């Protein structure tokens, strides 16, 4: 091309970022890397390696070590050894380390950005302008949390040794999201980067070591899924933090069930991108570019489901197609492109197959007729319109540059379509009417909502999903808790189960018997006979029958879930209203305090004083959660933009509660009160040996204005009922307190819809101890934080 030709055509020429330094770095390592363990590169014990390729050309890039058991063991030993010393450092010292890492990233920003672009295939613009600056921001932000940890998280300690498994779509940024909070708060880390994209993690470890990070604090073990599994299964790892597919997330949940490992999962999505007729349409069209043609669409929170109001659908699609025509796909290091290469041929195949499937299911295909690079894994910007909800491309994550679009008629229908998904990661809402936009934002089932924006991220703002998009948050104060554990729960002992009394038959006499009271189940605000029509006896320590309760079965659970789902108005009731009702429950319970105390004594054999204490504590606990109901508030984050991000605690939905065997009244109250205070609806399975306090309780509920379906009570076998609840795909959370086996079972069965679980692994809680048994520790587990980003300005 000559100047004259460019002058006539006014075309863009190639503008390649130099890769000399990046290639030099590879050459210095002879394009071959070991793991980074205990402060140095080491080969695999087995000597096995695998190749990593350059997506834009398909050429081999480097040889990497395969992490096997000996390697993972070595890394864990090193991390364990370092953890005590690392946690013992004053927060300020850890803050200095984190600060040094942030500065180090900035000093080597271009090298990291270029290596990342080569290794992943994403445009240098994104690595240079987004990934690397955001990563540095994460280290700065979390240096701050280390600095103030002693005062801000005084009642928590680090979790310990953390295994982190990250994906290939944002290799360096995900490293930062994982490593920065973990290290800041006193944990040590074994990180496994994705097999396609390990290089920037290795580069980071090398640079971090040079920046003075102590050996063992951060180890990198490379490898494929098997290596990840070794970390997940390792008995001396205290926590697993995973970002990746929902499929693998499920496997990790299942494998860690009952192990006591803390777990955060950041998984897939099929996030809605909703455009109302009063939106800035051109702005929204550009939003689609940022939503689905960012990082080649390989973004877990990509706005991949366009929902466009019917009245503007034609105009919107015309403009979108026109915009697609000016997108440029090219070499990752070209500074004049919008999209680079798909990470690997296997992903390209998947995208192609799904698009083909979408077309066969009736979608209309539009692909920009633009110049595509030859060779390598490239896929053009693609729009599938007229997609029906029945089509596979409307529900499955494509993880490529493919938007699917549908229309809606009303705001109500927009919400219905948007929320009709197994996922719940993010959402984008476009409207210039504040009332409409915020109302929709509040109703979306998503962990992150962007108003008139998309794909905004910041270290101060929690990121994470609802439903099958996973649990836990990364970033902000809410993210810090994922790397901490409560001091009050350290040293909890294994629960000692009371020996169940045996029935000592006694013949009746001729005295006037008490009027028989039949305890039923309590479902949807009504007393209900158990479906199976069997009963079980409740026997006093002296062997006397105190009464009989219904033997609940799976159908009773099913009915209770239907009732609880129908009570959704409770979740949007005002916090004042919920507080009032909790106080009213306490008031009505106190009116029958003596009777309940007698019941506790009769069932458990507790002394009158002890029974009264439990009674008093129960009333106080109801007051506590009445108090919290309108005070457990969100925060306003201040990310670096003109606007705010509102972190709002939202109820989980319907929660199953398996009450502990001990403390028949206080255990029950301690678990249901925080849940309903936060707006959840509950199906409670009372203490298996001592259920009568809970069945007596339903008349309290009936007289306390608790709406039907908010609290449901099903008596029977804790294990059997927990099994149904944990596997029920319309239950959003299960709290289970009891045996270690119960905990393991609940966690294992929760994978169907990846419900939130809260279990005690058979460790006894002192329910009388307010620091261990009430307050924020429980409230945090009763909500998901939704972050609503609201940029503003006129």
């Amino acid at each position, binding site marked *: 091309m*000559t100047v004259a*030709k460019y*002058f006539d055509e*006014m075309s863009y020429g190639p503008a390649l970022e130099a890769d000399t330094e990046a290639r030099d770095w590879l050459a210095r390592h002879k394009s071959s890397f070991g793991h980074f363990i205990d402060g140095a590169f080491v080969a695999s014990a087995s000597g096995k390696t695998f190749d990593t390729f350059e997506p834009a050309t398909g050429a081999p890039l480097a040889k990497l070590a395969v992490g096997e058991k000996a390697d993972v063991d070595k890394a864990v030993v090193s991390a364990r050894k370092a953890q005590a010393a690392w946690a013992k450092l004053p927060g300020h010292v850890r803050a200095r380390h984190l600060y040094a890492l942030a500065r180090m990233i900035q000093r080597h920003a271009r090298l990291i950005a270029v290596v990342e672009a080569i290794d992943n295939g994403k445009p240098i613009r994104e690595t240079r302008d987004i990934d690397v600056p955001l990563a540095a921001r994460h280290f700065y932000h979390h240096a701050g949390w280390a600095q103030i940890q002693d005062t801000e998280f005084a009642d928590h300690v680090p979790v310990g040794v953390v295994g982190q498994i990250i994906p290939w779509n944002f290799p360096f940024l995900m490293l930062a999201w994982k490593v920065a909070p973990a290290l800041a708060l006193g944990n040590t880390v074994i990180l496994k980067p994705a097999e396609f994209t390990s290089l920037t993690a290795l580069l980071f470890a090398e640079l971090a070591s040079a920046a003075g990070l102590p050996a063992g604090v951060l180890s990198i073990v490379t490898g494929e899924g098997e290596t990840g599994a070794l970390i997940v299964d390792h008995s001396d790892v205290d926590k697993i933090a995973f970002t990746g597919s929902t499929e693998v997330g499920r496997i990790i949940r299942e494998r860690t069930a009952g192990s006591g490992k803390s777990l955060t999962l950041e998984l897939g999505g099929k996030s809605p991108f909703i455009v109302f007729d009063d939106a800035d*349409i051109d702005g929204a069209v*550009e939003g689609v570019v940022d939503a689905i043609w960012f990082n080649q669409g390989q973004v877990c929170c990509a706005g991949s489901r366009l929902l466009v109001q019917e009245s503007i659908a034609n105009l919107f699609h015309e403009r979108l197609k026109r915009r697609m025509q000016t997108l440029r796909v090219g070499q990752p290091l070209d500074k004049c*492109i919008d999209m680079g290469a798909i990470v690997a041929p296997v992903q390209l195949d998947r995208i192609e197959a799904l698009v083909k499937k979408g077309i066969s299911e009736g979608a209309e295909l539009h692909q920009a007729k633009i110049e595509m690079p030859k060779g390598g894994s490239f896929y053009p910007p693609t729009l599938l319109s007229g997609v029906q909800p029945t089509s596979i491309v409307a529900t499955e994550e494509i993880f490529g540059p493919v938007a699917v679009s549908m229309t809606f008629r009303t705001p109500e229908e927009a919400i219905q379509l948007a929320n009709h998904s197994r996922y719940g990661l993010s959402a984008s809402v476009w409207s210039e009417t504040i009332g409409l936009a915020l109302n929709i934002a509040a109703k979306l089932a998503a962990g992150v909502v962007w108003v008139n924006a998309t794909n905004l991220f910041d270290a101060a703002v929690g990121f994470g999903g609802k439903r099958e998009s996973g649990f836990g948050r990364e970033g902000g104060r809410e993210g810090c808790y994922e790397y901490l554990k409560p001091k009050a729960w350290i040293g909890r002992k294994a629960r000692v189960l009371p020996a169940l009394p045996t029935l000592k038959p006694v013949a009746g006499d001729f005295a006037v018997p008490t009027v028989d009271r039949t305890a039923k189940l309590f479902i949807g605000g009504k007393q209900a006979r158990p479906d199976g029509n069997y009963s079980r006896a409740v026997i006093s320590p002296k062997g006397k029958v105190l009464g009989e309760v219904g033997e609940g079965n799976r159908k009773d659970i099913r009915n209770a879930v239907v009732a609880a789902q129908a009570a959704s108005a409770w979740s949007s009731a005002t916090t004042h209203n919920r507080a009032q009702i909790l106080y009213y429950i306490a008031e009505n319970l106190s009116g029958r305090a003596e009777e309940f105390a007698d019941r506790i004594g009769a069932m458990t054999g507790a002394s009158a004083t002890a029974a009264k204490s439990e009674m008093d504590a129960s009333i106080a606990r109801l007051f506590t959660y009445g108090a919290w109901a309108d005070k457990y508030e969100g925060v306003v984050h201040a990310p670096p933009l003109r606007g705010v991000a509102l972190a709002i605690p939202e109820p989980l939905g319907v929660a199953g509660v398996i009450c502990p065997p001990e403390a028949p009244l206080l255990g029950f109250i301690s678990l249901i009160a925080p849940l309903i205070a936060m707006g959840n609806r509950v199906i409670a399975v009372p203490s298996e040996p001592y259920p009568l306090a809970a069945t007596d309780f339903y008349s309290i509920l009936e007289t306390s204005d608790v709406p039907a379906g908010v609290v449901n009570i099903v008596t029977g076998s804790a294990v059997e009922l927990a099994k149904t609840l944990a596997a029920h795909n319309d239950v959003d959370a299960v709290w289970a307190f009891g045996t270690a086996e119960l905990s393991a079972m609940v966690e294992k069965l929760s994978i169907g819809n990846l419900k939130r679980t809260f279990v005690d692994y058979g460790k006894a809680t002192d329910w009388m101890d307010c620091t261990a048994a009430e307050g924020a520790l429980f409230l945090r587990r009763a909500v998901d934080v939704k972050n609503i980003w609201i940029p503003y*300005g006129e």
Partner: protein
Amino acid sequence: MERTGLRATKPDDTQAMAVAKAPSLAHQAQTNGWPRNRGLELDLSWVLDARVNLSATERRVASLPGRRTVKKDAQAAWLLKAVTCIDLTTLNGDDTAERVKRLCAKAMSPVRPDILQSLGMGNRSITTGAICVYHRFVATAVEALGNSGIPVAAVSTGFPAGLSPHHLKVREIEASVADGAKEIDIVITREHVLTGNWRALYEEMQDYRAAAGEAHVKAILATGDLKTLRNVARASLVCMMGGADFIKTSTGKEGVNATLAVTLVMLRMIRAYEERTGFKVGYKPAGGISAAKDILNYQFLMKDELGREWLEPDLFRIGASSLLADIERQLEHHVTGAYSALNRHPIG
């Protein structure tokens, strides 16, 4: 009712009102044969429907320099193209005939011939897009430019505040046209926008267009005075409906002149107007663009938001006085590999 629905995109659409009595194509050589905007009946529902989200607009322009760049030969070509779009301007109280003549000489030879030669562009006649002066110097400039084909643009209608009596503003246009101005840069009455008096703005625009006759009209919105992007969008639409051939950001005298954000909004309105009427309206950012790397971003926006045809002087002008000198230095650097200096290029 569909919002801003697509309609037939033919210039002969009955929607297009014959605003001006003047025939199209004022100077054939300067246009690529696009029919001249004939305006449209004032469509208030469209005007009031305009919505612009500031943050979304800012994000688009913020990411643009990372998405588009030109290097080496391509960069030289783009900068040279920018030269052909410059309205080389002097609008100062101390302007004199000799000062204007010097500027005209520069307009006819904006880049040193040896540099053009080295770029392989020696056989092209590279001139600026126009000379832009006050009415007083129109005749001087017309004479100085002779048969170069470079049009003279006159700022008019009580530039820069636009608060002279309306009949005098119309007379001012007529006088400049009589003196040989081929282009008239009018300033709108900002009050009409700030008070929402869209009909007054529309009628004012129609009058100016009629007074200009064959001369092309560039409507200066003075976006720095309008403050909000919504105002900018609405004023853009009304001026196009009123028959503007170009919409232009600023007089250069407001507190804030051309910005990429304002540009994006105005370009999108031009695109929507074409979408509906088929007429291509030109765009002229003015004020504050003094660096070569800045003008490239404007060009990228023109190309990506509007299309290739909007990179030529019939649809794109740049109101600038010091930009040319920076482009000349960049071009010499491209040719020699050494950074250049201002005194190596003739003054304008």
